[in-house]
Structures are given as C-alpha cells and as structure tokens.
C-alpha cells in the first residue's frame, strides 16, 4: 500500500474467504465495525494484527485483511500480549467470545487487566456457547433458559464490567453489535487509548439465544430501544486526574452502578477510562531503549556474551 494514502474500508476487505456465520448473527456487525474503525484509525493492513480465540467470533481474523492469529480457546489475551510486546509498532486487536474471555480465559482476563499492555480487546457477548450448540455462557443469568438449554441456569452470571474494574482495566466500554455508528466510535477510542481497552459487545445469537434477540434490544415489547448512549446522558466515565484516589473510586462506583442496569434500559458507551502507566512503560523504566525500539528491532542474535561469561570467572 502506498504510504501517502490513508486506508479505506475496502483495503481491509478479504475476497478469498467468506464468513460462515448464521444469518442475523451479531458477528457481522462487529466485523463491519472493526473494518470501519481500522480505516478510521488510519493504520495500513500490514501494521495491524488481529488475534482471536475459539468460537464463532474467533473466525473474525479470516474475514479482515490484516495479519491474523486464530489461537486457542481462552488464550487470546496471552497471544496478543506476546505479539504486542514483540512489536510495539503493530496495532493489536484481540477478539473473543464471552465464554472465551470470561469463562475458560477468566484468569487471563483478570491478569491482562493488571498488566495493561497497549492493545484493544473486543468481547462478543451473546450469552451462549454458539459453536457447541447453545450451552449457557458465563454471562447467562441465573434462572434464564434459552431454547437450547434443557434446564435453566442455576449459577449467577459474571459481571464483566465489574470484573474489569476490579482487574484494573484502564478503558472499559460496552457496545452493541447492531449499533454500528457507536460501535465504530468505541473501537476507535479503544485503539487510541494507551493500555488494555475492553469493549464488551452485546450481540444476538439468532440460532441459540431466543432471549437476547434483536427484537429484545430494539425493545419492541416496551416501545423504545433498550440500549441508550451514556454520552447522550452526560455520563463521563473518564478519570481526569489519575492521581486523585477519590475521583478514581467515584468513577469506578459509577461504572459499577451502570453495569447493573439491565431490563428496560441498557447503557452503551465508555463506562470507565483512566490513563495509567502501561506494561510497556514499566519495561521502559527498566530499559529506556524500549520506548523507541521494539524488541523485534533491538534483538541481536549472535551478540557477544563474553562479558557475561567473564562474571563467572
């Protein structure tokens, strides 16, 4: 790609591979938003690496023209961490499902929040394990029963926003797959954020989840869309003074309160954001060269190590 021209959505299009998602799947909306956000971000396709987990969402890298790693179930954050630290110049997008991130990958979800490596993490949250035919995911609430479940869920759902707050995520947002304009904006903001940026993206699974349907989100039963924009209501989740513990606690409490809003009104937007040192900043504090030279540029295979050997003489 010529350096001077900014990429367009078409530059991220893939022609030799077509999504095998079901009709009406929220994944289409997320894929489309990813491509638009990448174009708006202005990074060339070869400067982007999309890393995904396992499940329907995990197939996303196959449908966007960037570098892509379709990894293991629950390990997307591990792999994304390795990629980003190896080459800081890459725009790294981690993508996975709710089971992938909040279930089998829950330990990595927590520790990635603590680590705060500079990448974006999109969670496709549809409440079910679609690819294995509709078992309850970690976000399925107690007592709920979608049509593929023989019995209602008897354990509580995880609150991903609350978990993210207490894990130390520095950018926490919720999107909705079918609200394209907002979702594109959120993904761009997440990529611009320094640190690990989480977007929990609500999406319908039209085949297995007959509760969280498009009609549910549209609010056909209550006469108004259930999702609403936090920004429109003047909600400001950003911590303006990261050294002010009172402000941090207040903003975290507000975000946590919003995370419990469900039913007739579901908030969409940035719930919490704070500028804190990234993992890369920590590495730079040990070794200043890391600020400007990625590991891929500074590694020196075959380097003389006799000075190290001499320490043992």
């Amino acid at each position, binding site marked *: *790609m010529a350096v001077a021209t900014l990429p367009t959505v078409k530059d991220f299009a893939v022609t*030799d*591979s077509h999504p095998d998602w079901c009709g009406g799947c929220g994944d289409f909306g997320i894929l489309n938003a990813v491509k638009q956000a990448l174009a708006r971000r202005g990074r*060339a*396709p*070869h*400067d982007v*690496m*999309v*890393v995904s987990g*396992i499940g329907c969402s995990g*197939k996303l*890298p*196959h449908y966007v*023209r*960037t*570098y*892509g*790693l*379709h*990894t*293991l179930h629950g*390990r997307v954050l*591990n*792999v*994304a*961490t*390795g*990629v*980003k*630290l*190896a*080459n800081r*110049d*890459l725009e790294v997008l981690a993508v996975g499902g709710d089971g992938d991130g909040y279930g089998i990958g829950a*330990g*990595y979800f*927590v*520790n990635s929040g603590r680590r705060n490596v500079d990448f974006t993490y999109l969670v496709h949250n549809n409440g079910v394990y679609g690819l294995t035919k509709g078992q309850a995911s970690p976000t399925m609430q107690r007592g709920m029963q979608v049509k593929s479940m023989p019995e209602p869920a008897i354990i509580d759902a995880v609150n991903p926003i609350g978990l993210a707050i207490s894990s130390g995520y520095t950018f926490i947002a919720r999107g909705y797959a079918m609200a394209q304009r907002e979702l594109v904006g959120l993904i761009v903001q997440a990529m611009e954020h320094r640190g690990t940026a989480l977007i929990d993206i609500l999406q319908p699974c039209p085949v297995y989840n007959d509760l969280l349907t498009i009609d549910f989100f549209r609010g056909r039963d209550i006469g108004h869309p259930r999702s609403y924009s936090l920004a429109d209501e003047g909600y400001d989740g950003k911590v303006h003074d990261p050294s002010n513990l009172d402000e941090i606690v207040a903003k975290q409490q507000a975000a946590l309160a919003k995370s419990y809003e469900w039913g007739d009104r579901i908030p969409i937007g940035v719930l919490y954001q704070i500028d804190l040192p990234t993992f890369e900043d920590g*590495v730079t504090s*040990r*070794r200043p*060269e*890391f600020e400007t*030279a990625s*590991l*891929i540029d*500074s*590694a*020196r*295979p*075959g*380097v*003389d*190590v*006799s000075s*190290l*050997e001499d320490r*043992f*003489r």
Partner: protein
Amino acid sequence: MPASDLSLMFGGPAGSGVNPMSEIFMKACSRAGVFVFTNVEYHSNIHGRHIFFRIRTADEPVTSHVERVDVLLALDAETIYGTDPHQDYQSHKGHLHEVVPGGAIVIDAKAGITAENLGRDDVRLLSLPYDDIVRSAVEEHGVDYNARRHAVMANMVPIGACCALLDFEVDRVLPIVAERLPERHQNLVPMNRSVLQHAWQAAHDVLGDEKFSQTLHARDDQPARMLVAGHEAVGIAKLHAGCAFQTYYPIAPASDESVYLEALQADWPIVVLQAEDEVASMNMAVGAAHAGVRAATSTAGPGFTLMAEGMGFASITEAPGPVVVLYQRGGPSTGLPTRNSQQDLRFALQPAHGEFPHIVVAPGDVEEAAQYTHLAFNWGDRYQVPVVVLADKFIANSHFTVDSLGLEGLPVDRGPIWTGDVNGAEPYRRHRLTSSGVSPRAVPGTPGGEFVTTSDEHTERGRIEEDIDNRIEQMDKRMGKLDIMLREIPESDQFTLHGAEDADLTIVSWGSTRCPIRDAIRQVERESDIRVNNLQIRLLRPFPADAVREILERANRLLLLEDNYEGQLGMLVAEQTGIQIEEKALKYTGRPFSQDDVAEAIRRQVPAPEAAMAAQGT
C-alpha cells in the same frame, strides 16, 4: 582417582547460609585454578529443613559427585546424625556415615558433639565455638559484638576452618566475600577477614602438629575459568541467541534461569515477563515468536503440563519457536519439587493431543545446555516448530568449571523469511507447500505479507479448511519436517559415541547422566582394563533411529542408564530400532547418579577378571 580429588560438604538447615557459604568457597577454589563441581540437595522449604552442598575439587575436569565425604562442614547436629530416628519417619540419616576414615568434621561447639559421643574415632573432629570466634574478631576492630548484626558472619568460620584443614590460604576467600557484599557493606570486609583468620587459627590450634591428610593446592598457572550453573549458562545462551522475550511462572528448579535474566534486562534487549501461569507463559511466547522475535520460556514438569496445548498450537500454526527449556524434577504431580529426575522424556515427546512435529533435544552437560539452547532457536526458526530443551534439576543447580560456554562462532539461522513484493499477483501463502518443506514466513509488519493462521486445520493461505486433500497435504507438509530435520541437523549434534568403538560395554544414555558417566568411565578405565563407551543421544525427536540401531548392533554389551523408573529411553529405542536393551541401571530416588553409582553399574555388567587383577596389583 584424580590426584587432588576432594569431596567437601557444607550442610545445615535451610535459611542458615549454607548456600552463600558454599558459593563463596567454591568460587575461591575456582579462582585458585582448581576444577570444581558442585551439587546441592534441598527440600521444598524456606527455613529449617536440611540442605547440603557438595563441592568436589580436582586437578582435572569433574562433572559429578562421589558418595564419600572428605570434609564435612556442619552448621548443626542434624547434618551429622540426621533427623530424630525416633520420629514417625526418619527423613534423612545424616552424613556421618559418608565421611571417610581419616576425614574431618567441622561443627559448631554449640551442637555439643565431642570426640567421645561422635561414635567415630577414625575422623578428625573440629568442634569450634562459632559465636566466640566471631565475637573476638569483631572486638578486634573495637566494635561491640551484637548478635543481631554480627552472628551472620559465623558462616565464615567453617570456611576458615576448611582453609586450615586443607592448607588453603584464607586470603583467596576474602575477595569473593568482598564481591558478594553490596557497596554499602564493603566496610564489613576487614571484619570478615578477621573472622576467617580467627577461625583458621582456632582450627589450626586443634589440629596441632598432626596435619590433615589432604590439601587443596592452588594452581595459579591455570587460566581463569568459569564456574557456572546450568540455569545461568542457559540464560546466557538465550541472550547470545538474541532471545528477546522470555516468559515464566515461578517453579522449582526452573525459575532461577528467568530470575537471572530478569536482572539483566537493563543492559540486554530482553523482556522477562512473569506470567499468571504456564498456559499464559507458553502462549505469550508463541505470540511473540509469530510476531518475529526469538521467544522462550522455562519450566519444570508441572508447568510443562499446562504448556501442552500451546505446543500443539505452535506446531500447527508453524510458529518459529518458541524454545521451551524443561528442567525435569521428580514427578508425578508435585512429586519431588527440588529433586532430580529424567521422568519427562516420554511426555516431552508427545506433550499434546494430535500428531505434530516438534524438536526435543537433551543436552548432556553445562556447555551443551548453552550450545543446544542456542541451536534450539535456529531450529525453531528454520523448521517453524516449538523446540524443547530437555534439561533437569541436576543441570540447573549444579556448578561446573568450564573454559567458556562455547557459544562464540555458533551460527545464527533465522530460517526462510518472505520478502516478496507488495504488488505480486499472487497473494502470500503462509503455509505454502515448498520443495524444502518449509514455507518462508512473513514477519508481521511486512507490507503485502498479511496472513492469517489458525489452530484449525488450514489451507496454504491459513484459511480454515476441512477438505480431505488439503488435510493430507498439510499433514504431510508438517510431519515431513521431521525427516528434513534428521537430514539437515548434523549427526554430531544428534548423538555422540564417546570413547572407543570396540568397548566391552556401551552405556546408552541421554541428558545429564552424561556427567557422571564421563567421570565413572575415566575411573573404571584407570582402575582396570575394562573399556567402556557411551552412546549419548541428544536428539530425541526426531529420533536418529538408523544411526542408533547401527551403533547398538555393533556394541558388545549394552547398558541403559536413566534417572527414571521405566527406562524411557529404552522404550523409545525399542520403538524406533526394534532393539530391546535388557540391562538397565535405573534410579528414581530423586537424586542424580554419582560417579560411584555409575562405576558400580559398570562393574556389575563387566565383572572382568582384569578389574580384580588390577585391584590386586598383579
């Protein structure tokens, strides 16, 4: 036996300074031009359980321990007598029985051990008042003795006494003490010198005119050699190979290597990341490898268990690496966390579900641990597979004298890298079928090289594909790399037949047992006309079956020697060559083979009249 072959042992409760004491003395020996080998045995415990450090010195290279102890330097009575025999279970029996007749024991007088109650009248007992010696040395400097500040220097007392016993100058020890003390404590160096001198004098007085039978001769004509532990050698090798990303989760005995590298991050281009578990460690390293840097992780058996899925993932996605250094310890499960074993060979050969290519290489000593770690990165890049360097606790924690690690001049091979043109008509194929069997890899960030790859079966383009023909093509491509490795990796790296071709006995081994085997063969051949050679197999996957079969068929008599219960190399050899090695020397105590263990195993196999005759001097 080498002319000045000494076996010293420092022992005491964990946390009492056995390690620093031993490390100071071994370094002083090394600086004095003496060849040193050490090994340490410790419990999975922070404070209180028995720990001992063997220091063997010789005027020629030694790489294993012997069972006997010439000088036992004890910090407590347990080191001598073991744990209370009236307890439910006697955890260890002490080291008194290992002290040779004519040997010596140095002990703190506080332990209350006297010549009368020791129960051995054939050893020299030096019961010294450690605290009083420190007190008098401190007061010599016009300072009031303060136990909280000064008692720690009691560690110097056995060293000073050892110097007196072996006629070794205490001034050779002092520079090492100074090097170990931080800048702010350099003012303590003269006081430490006084403790050493007072201890030397006290021991000297006890010995009187009756000198100890053994001496430790400094050899100042010798070049300055390294005294290095395996975990340090591997760490240096990783830096030499340009490894830029090391992940780990704390585990004995592997994390020493990562902690060593962590301390070097300010000056070397490497990030050492302590992950939340070994699943994360492994997959972070796989991600970094795909992104184009040489990446590695280190672990022990329990951690490698968690890395299993990452091995399959790295292999099916043809990641260039990572390099996994697996320091085996006693299993199964938590097993013997701080003890040695070779129990993980079969696990390393098949660490995950499905069929996939990877490399398993087992270095035999500290230099090989460094060199094969370096080569592992080359192999990972060239064949785009994960590489397991199969080491163990013995290699990790033992110290060896070497001239250098032998890294200089080893080639750097990053394997085929795609640099194709951006406007090429054909899209780049990450898993392209090539005549060489390896697909040139595009480094993410390269224009035009955008690829996706996946843990699913995939096409040349990395797209998920379940078609039968494609499956056959990609399986054949991946698995075919094993044959290519066997063709391309030099045979001298795959295995070595050490010693004469037509030996009476051929010991078949892998990994660190090479160290005691080398010493034992030298001993046996000096003491008898028995000729023994050693087939040391390094490359365990892919396995050099034809070459090994040929050597085994030529051998007069075979002995399998392994630090495990099942004889896992024997099983592999049988599977790969059809040859069953009937005679086995297997040890699964969690302790490494000693030179004596191996010599005994040899003699059991070849009770040759020559040996008996040599012993009788006929």
